[in-house]
C-alpha cells in the first residue's frame, strides 16, 4: 500500500524533473523545484512508515520548512535583478 503511493510520488517526481529540464521560462523551473520539494517531503513521510521507522519523520518536516526558504531566496534574487536592470517594481 505504501509502496503503491510512493511509486505514484516517484513518477510525479520524474514528471517534475522533466518540466525543470524543459523550461521554457525560468519561472517554470522554479515551479518544478518547488513541486519537487513538496513531493520529497511526502515521499519521505511515506517511506518512513514503509521502513517501519516513524521517528524519521523529522526529515520530512525539515523539507517542508527549508523548501520555502529556497523559493523566497529566488524571489529576492528576481527583485534584486530587476532593480539592477532599472525596471521599477510596482505592487
Amino acid at each position, binding site marked *: 500500500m505504501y*509502496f503503491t503511493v*510512493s*511509486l505514484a510520488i*516517484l513518477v510525479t*517526481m*520524474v514528471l517534475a*524533473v522533466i518540466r*525543470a*529540464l524543459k*523550461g521554457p521560462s*525560468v519561472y517554470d*523551473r*522554479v515551479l*518544478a*523545484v518547488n513541486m*519537487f*520539494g513538496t513531493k*520529497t517531503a511526502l*515521499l*519521505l513521510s511515506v*517511506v518512513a512508515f514503509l521502513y517501519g*521507522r516513524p*521517528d*524519521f519523520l*523529522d*526529515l520530512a*518536516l*525539515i*523539507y517542508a*520548512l*527549508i*523548501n*520555502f*526558504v*529556497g523559493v*523566497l*531566496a*529566488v*524571489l*529576492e*534574487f528576481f*527583485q*534584486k*535583478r530587476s*532593480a*539592477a536592470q532599472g525596471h521599477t*517594481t510596482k*505592487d
Partner: protein
Amino acid sequence: MIIVFAVFLLTLLVLTAVAVVRTENLFVAVMLMAIFSLLMATNFFILDAADVALTEAAVGAGVTTVIFLGALALTAEQEKPIVSGRWLPLAVVSVTVLVIIYASFDQPRLGDPGAPAHQHVAPWYLEKTAEFIDIPNIVTAVLASYRGYDTLGEVFVVFAACIGVLFLLSVPPVKPQKSKSSDNSSGLRHHLIPQVVGRLLVPFIFLFGLYVQFHGEYGPGGGFQAGAIIATGIILYALLEGEAAALNAIPKSVLMAMVCGGAMLYGMVGVAGMILGGNFLDYSVLHSDPVIGQQMGIILIEAGVGITVCGALLSIFHAFAERD
C-alpha cells in the same frame, strides 16, 4: 523494493547532472542543483543514512542555493558558449567512466554484509556503544566521541573557510558603490503574504533547530544539522526584513564570537579532559561515572559544533549579501 527506488532516483540524478552541465544559464543551473541536492538526500535516506540525509536537506536545499544566488547576483548570469576543445575532455571522461564501471564489478554488491567495510571497527561500534556511552544514535556517538579528533578538524576547516570568505569579501569594492543599495536592502517588505507566513515560520524553524540539536543523541540530528537549520531560519528573517534588520538582531561581532567561541568550546572540553587526568577529548573523566561523563562531553561538543556552524554559515551569507 529498495532497488526500484534506487534505480528511479539515481537515473534522475544522472539526468539532472547532465542538464546542469549543459545549460548555459547559470540561474537555471543553480535551480537544477537544488533538485540534484534533494535527490541526493532522498537517496541517502533510502540507503539508511538518516543523519546524512538530514544534513544534506538542511544544507543543500537552503543554504547552498542562497549562497550560490548571492554569488550570481554579484557576477554574471549567462555563460558564454564554449568555443573549442570539448572533444578531448569528453573522450577522457568517457574512457574514465568505462574504466570505473569495469572496476566496479570487483566491488562488493550493494548491501553485501560480508563487504570489507563492515569487518573492522564498525561491528565494535555497534556492539559497544550501548555499554560505553549508552545513547541510541550510534552516528552521534562515533562523531563526537570515538572519532572526536576528526570532528575537531572539520570544525576548524569550517572556521578557516569562514575566515577566508570574510577576508576576501570585507575589502571594499574597487568600483564606486551604486546608489541602488538603499531600495533593495528592504528585503521582501512589499510582498505581504510571503512576509506574514515567513514571520510565522521563523520561530518554528528555530524551535526545530533546537530540537534537532538536543535530540541528536536519540534520533537523527546533532550539531552540524542544527547549526545549518538555525542559520537557515535567520537567513529567512534576513530575506523577509532586509539585511539591516537581521544584522541588527544578531550583529557581526556576535557572529564572530559564535564562530570562535564554538570552536574554542570544543577544544576546551578536550583540554578539560587532560586537566582531569585523561587524554585529549577523553570525556570519561568529566564525571565520576564514565558513562555520564561521555554523555556530558557529547552534549558540550555538539553545542560547540552547532554554534560554530551557525555562526560561520551566517557570516558567509552576510558577506555575500552585503557586497552589492
